[in-house]
């Protein structure tokens, strides 16, 4: 199975949200990283067939979405970002409704719903209305509905947003369980989420793919560009303004800084093994540093 994105563009007025994206995706987990506004959600909506590209094509095994029609959607499972539920439906009813939308017959729908609700640990509360669910429960229901039709393409847009660390771990494991022999595209700006489960990292910036590398080698490009240095707090404050600081850790009266920089930030700085987070900061720079500061605990 091959999903091809051919010269994909989406223009909103004068803004180009997705700019000539080309990629060939085969089964595996793709972590789609990018700062807010990078074009991740727009790209995922186009792949999900709910947003028409301004130009370019999406092909599954050589056939475009238009050519495949309904058949394309039988391959698709989509969990949009912040998607709403029907608050007055129970989880059971919601799943059966989604199964009907996905074209499953009643018998299969019931069996699959039961199986999935067990998998996402919601079976015991399946009779409760969705409006009574916590954020994490709703997210689990979201992925369960995406899996209803055994999709070969699973698109998850920010599935872990708003979840506490425990829920996020549980969610990551769920995704890993569902990912076998599928093309899974997992969008997030929480780097640690993808570092655990992605086979390939796709990094998006200004509507285009900045890089697409296997997880194992993705940080090779910044090897020798991640530094650690111990300094006094006054100097550390100055360095925080001048460099892309990934981490800042107080040790007694000193501060240990982790810096991403092409050159050594200080004579006493030493290189360390780069992480995905370092790579993210290397490419997205200071404009995302504040935004990401809340995620260092991940």
């Amino acid at each position: 199975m091959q999903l091809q994105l051919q010269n994909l563009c989406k223009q909103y007025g004068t803004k180009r949200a997705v700019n000539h994206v080309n990629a060939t995706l085969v089964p595996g987990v793709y972590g789609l990283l990018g700062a807010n506004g990078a074009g991740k959600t727009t790209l995922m909506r186009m792949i999900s067939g709910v947003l028409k590209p301004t130009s370019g094509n999406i092909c599954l095994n050589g056939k475009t979405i238009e050519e495949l029609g309904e058949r394309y959607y039988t391959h698709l499972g989509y969990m949009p970002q912040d998607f709403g539920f029907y608050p007055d439906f129970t989880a059971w009813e919601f799943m059966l409704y989604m199964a009907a939308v996905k074209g499953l017959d009643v018998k299969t729908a019931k069996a699959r719903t039961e199986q999935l609700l067990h998998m996402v640990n919601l079976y015991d509360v399946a009779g409760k209305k969705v409006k009574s669910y916590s954020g994490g429960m709703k997210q689990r229901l979201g992925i369960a509905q995406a899996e209803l039709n055994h999709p070969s393409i699973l698109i998850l847009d920010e599935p872990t947003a708003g979840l506490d660390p425990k829920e996020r771990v549980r969610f990551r494991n769920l995704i890993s369980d569902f990912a076998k022999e599928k093309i899974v595209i997992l969008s997030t700006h929480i780097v640690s989420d993808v570092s655990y489960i992605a086979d390939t990292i796709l990094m998006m910036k200004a509507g285009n793919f900045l890089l697409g590398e296997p997880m194992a080698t993705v940080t090779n490009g910044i090897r020798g560009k991640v530094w650690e240095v111990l300094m006094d707090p006054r100097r550390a404050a100055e360095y925080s303004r001048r460099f892309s600081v990934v981490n800042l850790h107080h040790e007694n009266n000193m501060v240990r800084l982790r810096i991403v920089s092409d050159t050594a930030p200080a004579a006493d700085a030493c290189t360390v093994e780069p992480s995905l987070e370092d790579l993210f900061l290397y490419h997205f720079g200071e404009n995302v540093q504040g935004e990401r500061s809340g995620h260092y605990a991940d």
Partner: protein
Amino acid sequence: MLIKYEFLKILRKKSTIIVMAISLLLTAFLFGLPILQYQTYNQDGVIKGFDGIAYEKEQAQNVSGPLTDAYIAETVAEYQRLFENPDNVGTDGNESFLIGDAYWNFEAPRDKLLSLIASVYDAPGEHSGLSKLPGLDMTDGVSYYQRLHEKVQTLLNTPSRELSTEQREYWSNMSSKVETPLQYGYHEGWEIILTSFELLMFALLAVCIVIAPVFSGEYQAGTDAVILSGKYGKTKLVTAKIISSILFGLLAFTLHIIVAFGLPLAAFGTDGWDLPLQIAGVTIPYPFTFLQAVLINLGVVYLVLLAMIGLTLLLSAKMKSPYLVLIVLVPVLFIPLFLSPNGTTGAYNLTLFLLPYRATMPEIGKYVSYQIGGMVFDALSMRAILYAILTAIMLPLARLGFKKHQVA
């Protein structure tokens, strides 16, 4: 399955229950008002509510029967005979009228019947009540129904009506199909229904409010992305949404109809269902009984309902929020309420008679007609055609609107 769940989606909402409850209560109140306010009089004073209805019904039943020329002549002669006795006549300076036993024993039970008879002798636009009856010459050899025919012809030829030859012929033909002699009898319940159809606008609005979120609610809640990426999201689901909306609309509206018609019919009885419309307005050209007229107009109202459902769904598919849908829809439904016709011809009046509010009113005695080439349509037929066409246009457009919706 999809229709079931889409129907459930509509029914489960708290807002649906609240809107329907308010609308049903309002409909019950409006159609119950003629019962609550009903009062009639006898020699002992006022009789209110159900007692008044029972008294009036008994009085009317005593004068029921075919309005033959002989019976009409006899009734007028009796009225004139009573009028000849000065003891029976009172005056307010301008008009003379029967008083005392002559009034209570003869005129009061026949008040509506006498008005009906007298109205034939009024010129078009004139409403002289019973004042012409004492001086009527019933021995001129011209029957009551000949007079009626002449009056209809005079009405049709009134220059201000601006009726074409084809339109005059259309109405004349229709009027000639009214069976005579007219059967007279009690018909209060049906008359209340026929004159209260426009009150169903609140039920119509309630249906539109409930189905306004069918598509736009998905956009607002953010569920559009997930359902549109399903296999049937752009095909069978859209059909299911439309069918469930229509189904809900028809059921909810029918519930309102049961309440609206049930109350007056329960209170006033179903008497008069088979009587001709002309006993409520002698120049009405439609050769229908009360039941037929109510059913035919109800059919038109259902077509208006379907078209309004179509319009609501179209707006819902095109707009981002149910509130925006209602901002457009409410004026469409209610602005005509503040516009009054100034005649029965001209683009303004003819348009007004087709707009949703007026389209619910039977307007059976106004000779409103539309001519397309050589073809003439009365208001009821024109409304039926128009709203059927609008439904046929708007439902596919609503379907297309959701199908083409872009999640952005």
